[in-house]
């Protein structure tokens, strides 16, 4: 595998045709990450192929460790983080699940590890394509969870990830979710910033009195039991609450230093003004959805789209404000939650919970789409809008959850 970026890079800002994986690998080099651990599983592992090549070519200096399992991969960076090293790792699908014990304790220990999840369907049966259930599994554990939609966003959010995760007021790990293939392997034009810009944006990682070092002989994670666990859980909860403010701050700084970014770090709104029907989704299905929305607008339909970027922390007020006034909300889930309320997807439940306090609640339908990497197409989005139009017209919901483009 060859990298498209020369090794004397980062002196000047450049434009490169690269994949989401390569964008994150370059972000690792720009952020001067100290310890990176790899283990092969498709599709995330492309990032590690690029990282190893960047290291081999001398583009940056890191300890690049090929672990013997995903569990070790995440444990190694967790411990490297404890002594003060900046870290990166990642996984996909069942690999992410294999590491789950380590993933859980990383948040429990408040280690600001940054990980890329190349979203992949969970086994069995085997499938390489994207589903969001792998990354979703950490939603309750204290990980930041962000879904990117473009290679540029992958790079930008990676840089933001260390800035937020390592913030003294946060110290929580950060998962960057990238749709398998659509994001990990698809190339797009990406603006690569200079090292000077990144250095200006990203301070060094400093654990201060939390650093494990002979000069600071602390005992980390002794057994607490019922005496103290609840207080410690509460501290993590407070850190996640503080993360909201830190994300706004870090995003504003990002826009200032790099000169790009959306109005909000948490959501992207597309043609939502005066929209009567708003679609909500995450990740790369944003592209066909935007195209469908634009075409429907051309036909005079008042349709819009909201892309949820941060799934954790979830920006309730921003989502409420974006959706307030719409009559119908169509939530597109690239995931499933068997046996859950309405047999719906995970995002749907979050949206319901978010909109419940509104004085006027919209009609809500859920669409399960694009599982296992099946493409979500413009006509699928049209079908969703037609379904919700019909429900709004008749005032009757035939079924709350519909599986889209699936053989019966």
């Amino acid at each position, binding site marked *: 595998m060859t990298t498209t970026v020369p090794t004397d890079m980062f002196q000047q800002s450049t434009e490169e045709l690269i994949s989401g994986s390569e964008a994150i690998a370059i972000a690792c080099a720009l952020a001067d990450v100290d*310890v990176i651990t790899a283990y092969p599983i498709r599709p995330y592992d492309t990032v590690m192929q690029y990282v190893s090549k960047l290291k081999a070519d001398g583009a940056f200096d890191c300890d690049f460790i090929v672990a013997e399992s995903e*569990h070790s991969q995440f444990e190694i960076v967790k411990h490297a983080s404890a002594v003060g*090293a900046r870290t990166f790792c990642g996984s996909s699908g069942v690999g992410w699940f294999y590491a789950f014990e380590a993933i859980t304790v990383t948040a429990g220990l408040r280690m600001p590890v940054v990980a890329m999840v190349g979203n992949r369907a969970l086994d069995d049966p085997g499938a390489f394509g994207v589903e969001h259930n792998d990354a979703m599994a950490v939603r309750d554990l204290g990980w930041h969870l962000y879904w990117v939609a473009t290679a540029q966003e992958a790079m930008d959010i990676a840089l933001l990830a260390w800035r937020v995760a390592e913030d003294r007021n946060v110290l929580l790990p950060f998962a960057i979710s990238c749709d398998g293939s659509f994001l990990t392997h698809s190339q797009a034009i990406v603006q690569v910033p200079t090292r000077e810009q990144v250095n200006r944006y990203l301070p060094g990682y400093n654990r201060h009195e939390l650093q*494990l070092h002979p000069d600071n002989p602390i005992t*980390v994670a002794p057994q607490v039991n019922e005496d103290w666990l609840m207080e410690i859980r509460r501290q993590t909860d407070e850190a996640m609450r503080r993360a909201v403010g830190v994300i706004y701050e870090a995003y504003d700084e990002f826009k200032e230093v790099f000169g790009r970014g959306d109005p909000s770090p948490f959501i992207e709104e597309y043609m939502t003004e005066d929209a009567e029907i708003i679609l909500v989704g995450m990740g790369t299905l944003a592209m066909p959805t935007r195209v469908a929305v634009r075409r429907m607008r051309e036909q005079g339909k008042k349709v819009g789209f909201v892309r949820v970027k941060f799934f954790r922390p979830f920006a309730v007020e921003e989502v409420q404000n974006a959706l307030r006034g719409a009559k119908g909300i169509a939530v597109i889930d690239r995931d499933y939650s068997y046996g859950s309320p309405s047999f719906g997807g995970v995002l749907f439940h979050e949206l319901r919970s978010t909109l419940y306090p509104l004085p006027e609640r919209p009609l809500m339908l859920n669409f399960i789409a694009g599982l296992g990497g099946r493409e979500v197409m413009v006509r699928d989005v049209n079908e969703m809008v037609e379904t919700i139009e019909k429900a709004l017209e008749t005032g009757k919901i035939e079924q709350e959850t519909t599986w889209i483009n699936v053989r019966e």
Partner: protein
Amino acid sequence: MTTLMTATDLPQVRGVKNIPVEEFYSSGHRTCQGCESALVMRLMIKAAGPRTIVLGSTGCMYVANTTYYSTPWVVPWMHTQLGSSGSAATGTAAGLASMMRKGKMNQEPINVIAFCGDGGGVDMGLSAISAALQHDEYNLLILCYDNESYANTDIQVSGSSPWGANSTFSPPGKVHRIMNSRWKKNTAPMLAAGHPDVRYIATACGSYGLDFNNKIRRALTIGGPTFIHSIDPCPKGWDYDPKYSHELGMLAIETGLWVQYEIIDGELILNGPSRSIAKGIRRRKPIEDYLSRQGRFAHFTPDDIAHFQQRVDDSWEKWWMPGVIPFTMSQD
């Protein structure tokens, strides 16, 4: 190839009076009376000294040692997951190495020791330990304190428990007297054979304090990843009066069941009683002397004891390397 920077202030010690007086594992733990593993912790960190980071995987030496607001560790200490001693050592050593190389941290030798019990090391953590032992660019020591059961969770059988031992997962019953039919895993030689670049692998026992001290120091100063497997009598799991811990450790070796050795740069050196036995200076004590002292073997019949004795005899008489390598070379 990176140059490894190891501690220079950890000489081999002759005579027990030369063992440091300072304690880095002090009061604050609540291990059982007679706990040999607690002694192993104390000897380990006494030998390693204050410029050491200790990583402890889940097990007795986590739960009984470190309770919130009460720690016996004078050195920096961090919990790691049950199967993660190898990864914890690797990650800590890698983090230190990376930051020192890049000028983000002062350059100095810092010892990294990760410990695990037999459950965490011999069973669950074996693959991570194996991986750690392949990283010859890092200085680290993995110490497996083997009390021959999952002693923290109620004494359940592990891959390192002796044949036939009574445990809460292998209780002798009316129909099945022997519920654990597995022979103890031969861990240290497996790791030595499988990782020929590792410069130091040893077995040890807290009953021999000076030997233990020197083994820890050798492991920390030789350079690269190292492994020590220690046999730790456990009053609770083995079911004996706590005052006999030391004696049982010695008996395990004097009966030839446990063999004390170091493998330094590919050369095996037998230590203490194991050396005398191999040289024919000392006769092995009958295994019954060892088994009959422990409640976990109380259900053994004379046939069971004979079987156990036969297995120990075979390991000394039929194995390629007595008590170490359990196969022979074909004469063809």
